[in-house]
């Protein structure tokens, strides 16, 4: 089922024209209403009339999270305060939080993209949707709430936490869909097992999970524990909140609602726009948002875009699950390397676990990359030729994925430091010289 067939299955040529029109309008709005953007554009000698079609998008300057912080709280708003009907804020892990504002039309647009998203997960007016995302300054709860209401589903605004109550309502109300973070979904699933609830009373058929990175392994686990089909939803509060992109039933990436959010993939270093299928940093331009339009906003999320029409019939591009953050990028012999690429190779190989360390060095003016991988107890062979074979397989897989020779050193288990949160994955000795 498709919520808005006109926009979700639009001919791509027509879509490009629509995006161009909306972009033109958006640049005009920010030029005349946001001093920060006007200055930026003037510095580059750009006037609103210079932006005539989607092709001109690449002429525009980028916006970063730092720009949002520098203009805290309302500096990037393009409408007077009396037109702002909602404020959300993200708790910044470093420094000030970032604030986003919404006009009435913005809330309508947001509800629309979330309605499209929920429809992708098969949710209709006949469903009971338990919204277990946090309600508040965080965009998750209210974002999904409005979209579910727009569809006409029965919404349970339970918010996050209070697991006992969550389980009780799952049973008593017979919720057919749940929206929360994937880690909380796994936690709920385990709680169902522990409390030995009557599984026949759990009616869940779809889960809408997002707001944090999760793996295919987790998807399998959650689907097993909760007996539902797990869907990935993507969004960031700066752009709108949840509903920037969403997986359809084909689950071959998340469709981006391009009539509202124009995506680009850039090289994080050179800022050059990359073709479809290439890994790089995701950039969004919001062309319909009124209160706080964003011009080429750098998300720092790394992914690829695919433009072939999906089996579901939607023509909207699909983005892969994000594989990491561009802040972590290394440049080795001119090649962009992300630690998350190494992780993906190790996860794909059945004989390794993602315990690794990248050691970058420089020998005779040439960068070298060594990847240390822990020997896993269960895969340890006492035959040197087997271990050498494993080493060569890892090295071969890495070299072909990274496009750069990577030597592999097998190390003893537990020797690579584990730290809470983001593990220390890189030692760059080049900086020390």
């Amino acid at each position, binding site marked *: 089922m498709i919520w808005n067939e006109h926009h979700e299955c639009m001919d791509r040529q027509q879509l490009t024209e629509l995006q161009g029109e909306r972009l033109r309008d958006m640049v005009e709005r920010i030029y005349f209403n946001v001093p920060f953007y006007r200055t930026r554009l003037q510095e580059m000698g750009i006037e609103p009339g210079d932006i005539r079609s989607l092709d001109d998008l690449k002429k525009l300057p980028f916006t970063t999270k730092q720009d949002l912080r520098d203009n805290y709280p309302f500096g990037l708003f393009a409408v007077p305060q009396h037109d702002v009907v909602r404020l959300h804020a993200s708790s910044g892990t470093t420094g000030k939080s970032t604030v986003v504002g919404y006009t009435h039309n913005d809330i309508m647009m947001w509800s629309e993209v979330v309605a499209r998203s929920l429809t992708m997960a098969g949710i209709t007016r006949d469903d009971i949707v338990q919204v277990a995302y946090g309600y508040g300054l965080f965009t998750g709860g209210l974002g999904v709430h409005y979209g579910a209401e727009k569809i006409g589903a029965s919404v349970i605004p339970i918010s996050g936490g209070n697991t006992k109550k969550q389980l009780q309502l799952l049973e008593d109300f017979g919720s057919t869909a749940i929206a929360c973070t994937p880690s909380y979904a796994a936690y709920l699933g385990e709680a169902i097992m522990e409390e030995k609830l009557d599984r026949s009373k759990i009616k869940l058929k779809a889960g809408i999970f997002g707001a944090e990175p999760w793996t295919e392994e987790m998807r399998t686990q959650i689907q097993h524990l909760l007996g539902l089909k797990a869907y990935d939803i993507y969004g960031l509060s700066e752009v709108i909140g949840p509903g920037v992109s969403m997986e359809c039933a084909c689950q071959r990436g998340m469709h981006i609602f391009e009539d509202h959010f124009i995506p680009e993939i850039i090289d994080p270093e050179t800022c050059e726009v990359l073709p479809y299928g290439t890994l790089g940093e995701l950039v969004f331009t919001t062309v319909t948002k009124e209160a706080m339009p964003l011009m080429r906003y750098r998300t720092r999320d790394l992914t690829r875009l695919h433009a072939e029409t999906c089996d579901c019939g939607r023509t909207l591009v699909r983005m892969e699950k994000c594989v990491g953050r561009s802040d972590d990028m290394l440049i080795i012999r001119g090649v962009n390397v992300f630690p998350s690429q190494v992780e993906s190779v190790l996860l794909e190989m059945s004989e390794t676990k993602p315990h690794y360390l990248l050691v970058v060095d420089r020998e005779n003016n040439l960068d070298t990359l060594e990847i240390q991988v822990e*020997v896993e107890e269960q895969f340890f062979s*006492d035959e040197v030729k087997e*271990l050498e074979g494993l080493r060569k397989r890892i090295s071969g897989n890495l070299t072909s994925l990274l496009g750069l020779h990577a030597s592999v050193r097998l190390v*003893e288990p537990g020797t690579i430091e584990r730290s809470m949160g983001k593990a220390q994955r890189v030692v760059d000795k080049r900086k020390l010289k």
Partner: protein
Amino acid sequence: MIIRQLSVFLENRAGRLTELTGILADNDINISAFSIADTTDFGVLRVITGNPELAEKVLKEQGFAVKITDVIGIVMHNKPGALHHALQILTDNGISIEYMYAFASSDDRATAVIRTDSPKKAIEVLQLHEMELLKTGDVYQI
């Protein structure tokens, strides 16, 4: 007849082997025989000991990657041609050797430790040729 050999993954870094022998000594575990196969980066230590289970346990506790591997030990007179005779039997029966090492004991005899992909068949053919094989109980006396 099958001897449980302890195999340990070792990084090539200074003092690592000494740490390992220290752990075995602290736990009163005697090393009867050992060999190290190494590359530039790492090595695999193979140990014959009277108590492989305890050795496995204490080394795992210390974070080593440890594995028990089944091997056989052929006991021979320490004289020319003895090893050749034993290996010829295995070759004639199509048994391939993954690796081997040997050690001499005080009674003028030598033991060859052999890792093959089919230890049971190796034992069978060696016994057929009246070769003496190392028994688990013997390991304490080596």
